[in-house]
């Protein structure tokens, strides 16, 4: 039985899709870069990084608070967000209230959800490429 692999990468198709998804989560845009779409990767990286940085600029890194539901949306930006949550909560004990916190949570949360959209798109395109190469 012939093993299904993902194009030039030589990886099994499912492992390749998993790699694309994980790369896109660790670094926004990396999933698109892996599937050979560098322009889109750069646009996604700079846009999401801009929104995330602007969010923590507005409300400080205290907006990344593991006890709020926003944290799960923020975590979609990158696993590095967990380290920022550790810094703001356990190391510096920072607090942020009111409008700046609200704006910070909205910016960082929406940046994370946009990254999820990009991850799903990168995995879908990689899957379509696999099917095309096999047929």
């Amino acid at each position, binding site marked *: 039985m012939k093993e299904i692999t993902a194009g030039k990468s030589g990886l099994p198709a499912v492992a390749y899709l998993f790699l694309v998804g994980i790369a896109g989560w660790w670094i926004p845009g990396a999933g698109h870069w892996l599937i050979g779409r560098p322009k889109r990767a750069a*646009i996604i990286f700079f846009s999401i990084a801009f929104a995330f940085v602007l969010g923590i600029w507005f409300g*400080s*890194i*205290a907006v990344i608070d593991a006890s709020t539901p926003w944290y799960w949306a923020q975590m979609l930006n990158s696993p590095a967000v967990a380290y920022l949550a550790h810094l703001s909560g356990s190391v510096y004990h920072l607090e942020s209230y009111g409008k700046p916190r609200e704006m910070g949570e909205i910016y960082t949360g929406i940046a994370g959800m*946009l990254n999820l959209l990009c991850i799903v798109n990168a995995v879908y395109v990689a899957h379509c490429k696999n099917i095309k190469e096999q047929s």
Partner: protein
Amino acid sequence: MINSLNLCQYVLAGFMSPMDIGTTAKGLLLALPLIAVIAIVYKAIKLEEIKFVSFLKEVFLLFGSILVFMIITAIVLFVIMKAVVG
């Protein structure tokens, strides 16, 4: 004169304390960069081909559409609020 270390500390300090954002009408303008990012990322994954001019045109169209829709929503909510509360 600000040396590079001071500048670096100044920038990092910006992430340790929140900005002063009042609940004013001007605060609504802070939605614009987010709308721009949403339009850019959405068009980056949806367009078949990325060419600078056509990409920019599509982004502006989506940015404008979101903005117009938000303004209409705000007007409708304001009218409803005025009709109910007075």
